[in-house]
């Protein structure tokens, strides 16, 4: 187990898109983080029901999506391509179905590699179906067995990279988010989610090793992006979403300490921090993911990306073709510009423009500013445990936000600014003693919502 205690990237000059200290060979001819940013395309089904009777239609949809997208990638001469197949719940609940689709995607990618020299890799992301049971049963039972089987069968069927958007801890974090309960969020992320990540990623790393795949990385989507979506719709303060984003870092770092090698999953905006800490290549998403969701991070997320993704798009017809094909084209041009800038010696200039265009408009963008990331990441990783790292993340990001706001690096409405003080007061109350913190949080927890034994906690 690799224990991170410092940063792999310490200089701002080295913290740029397309390059990382630990480049990764993967799939058919790709090297990630070695100077080129590649597109990562994700697609999903149009509105339709999935069952045994419609699987023939499901296969037809995926066959069409991958074939047309690869043809567009070849037409636009992309230097390489990663395709992500994010399994829908039904395709994980029936592991054979997910594996069937994995196999057909892999066959098409193999064909384009052979016929057109398209360097490529296939990332497969089973759904975290453990939360179908409430409170979630995370380490045993039918859903766990099916999810493990999904990883195994998809790896056998040709997945090059294995990922997940795991949800351990989310059963308490949702309420913490809506209540702006910082201690609740720290407990869910730094105590529960971190423990679940350890257990889960030991399994994923084992499956990957047994089937010639690579364990890639997780995403705190259900935590950080839920916060971002709630902030975008003005349900919660943006400063709270920014704090949560940074607090997800220790939780997602656990995957790499257990053996994940990257590329981190696209929707994990915490990947900027994880790249700085681990040196592994990271996928990111932003402007070209507008087909999936709004984000205030469209350009700044691109600044340090090694793969650039569209997050997900439904297979529906647009004037330019089917939506995944259109996404493929958008990603091809977005990455072409990044690579051109790098070849012309302008990578850091373009990076700074990408950063500068977003950073003053939203505190969530500010906390992704590369120099802010290096400072906060160093403070986080200097702590020895996931809890203390999450506590430090809260304290450090709030200090950075207060300073940034005072120096007018970004602006906040008055109701937003008030939350800086309220959240800081909560963060300062977090004890250093994890045992005491757990005791306090367990005492106030709703036992109908969570099973602590599923986190290895004997409380």
């Amino acid at each position: 187990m690799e224990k991170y205690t410092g940063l792999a990237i310490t200089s701002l000059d080295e913290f740029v898109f397309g390059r990382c200290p630990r480049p990764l060979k993967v799939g058919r001819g790709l090297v990630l983080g070695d100077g080129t940013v590649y597109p990562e395309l994700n697609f999903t089904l149009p509105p339709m029901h999935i069952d045994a009777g419609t699987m023939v239609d499901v296969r037809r949809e995926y066959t069409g999506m991958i074939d047309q997208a690869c043809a567009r990638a070849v037409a636009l001469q992309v230097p390489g391509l990663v395709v992500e197949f994010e399994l829908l719940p039904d395709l994980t609940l029936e592991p054979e179905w997910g594996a069937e689709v994995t196999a057909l995607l892999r066959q098409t990618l193999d064909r384009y590699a052979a016929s057109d020299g398209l360097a490529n890799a296939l990332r497969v992301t089973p759904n975290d179906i453990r939360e179908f049971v409430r409170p979630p049963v995370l380490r045993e039972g039918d859903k766990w067995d099916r999810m493990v089987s999904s990883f195994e069968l998809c790896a056998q069927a040709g997945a090059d990279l294995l990922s997940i958007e795991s949800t351990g801890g989310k059963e308490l974090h949702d309420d913490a988010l809506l209540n702006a309960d910082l201690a609740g969020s720290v407990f869910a992320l730094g105590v529960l989610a971190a423990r679940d990540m350890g257990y889960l990623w030991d399994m994923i790393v084992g499956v990957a090793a047994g089937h010639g795949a690579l364990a890639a990385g997780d995403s705190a989507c259900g935590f950080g992006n839920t916060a971002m979506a709630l902030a975008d719709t003005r349900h919660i303060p943006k400063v709270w979403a920014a704090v949560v984003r940074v607090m997800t870092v220790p939780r997602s770092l656990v995957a790499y300490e257990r053996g994940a090698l990257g590329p981190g999953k696209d929707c994990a905006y915490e990947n900027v921090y994880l790249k700085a800490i681990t040196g592994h290549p990271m996928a990111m998403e932003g402007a070209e993911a507008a087909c999936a969701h709004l984000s205030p991070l469209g350009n700044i997320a691109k600044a340090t990306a090694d793969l650039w993704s569209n997050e997900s798009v439904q297979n529906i017809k647009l004037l330019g073709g089917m939506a995944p094909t259109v996404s493929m084209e958008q990603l091809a041009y977005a990455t072409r510009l990044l690579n051109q800038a790098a070849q012309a010696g302008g990578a850091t200039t373009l990076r700074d423009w990408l950063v500068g265009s977003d950073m003053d408009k939203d505190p969530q963008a500010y906390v992704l500013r590369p120099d802010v990331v290096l400072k906060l990441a160093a403070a986080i990783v200097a702590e020895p445990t996931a809890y203390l790292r999450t506590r430090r993340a809260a304290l450090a990001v709030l200090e950075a936000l207060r300073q940034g706001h005072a120096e007018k690096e970004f602006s906040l409405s008055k109701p937003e600014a008030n939350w800086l003080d309220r959240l800081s007061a909560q963060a300062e109350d977090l004890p250093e003693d994890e045992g005491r913190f757990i005791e306090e949080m367990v005492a106030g927890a709703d036992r109908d919502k969570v099973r602590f034994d599923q986190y290895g906690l004997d409380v």
Partner: protein
Amino acid sequence: MTTIDELREAVVDGQAKVAVAKVGEGLAEGTEAGTLLRDGLIAGMGQVGQLYEEGEIFVPEMLVAARAMAAALKVLKPYLVEQGVKSNGKVAIGTTQGDLHDIGKNLVAMMLEGSGYEIVDLGVDVPADKFVQAVREGANVVAMSALLTTTMTNMQATIEALRDAGLRDQVRIIVGGAPITKTYADEIGADGYAEDASSAVRLVKEVLAV
């Protein structure tokens, strides 16, 4: 300032203990339970909703207010029952079968409750027959949400199940969620579509007025 004014203010400020005390005072003064509910609690939450719509507060502040209202309502409930005061409506709410994304659904439930509706929260991954059962037990609104393109289709299955059970005419159905549109709501025979939690409250009021 009257006791009802103080009750309303306690709800807006999220002061549960004060709200409970003011309900007690109001009852002792002989104010009808229905008046305390309508002009104190629901009006207070209405004011909170207004502040939220204007961007002055966020959901965390609304939840504090909602908890104050809930605490006061607990004290008031036996008197409401005794005086035959009914809720504005009974809403059965849940995410469709196969869908686990419930934050939006929870927000809608919270805001409806604050507006005086009785909520039957069916949770997540709710099969059609549970919605049917809830309507049999008196729900006059069914509210469904879905976030996935492959689970939104189960909304139609629920509407068909309500039709098959002969209950469609006695219930209003509203839908929402990221992939849902007004067009889709119309196509599957729902009575309305709401884009967010605030508009869901307005929509419930509208569909029940029809």
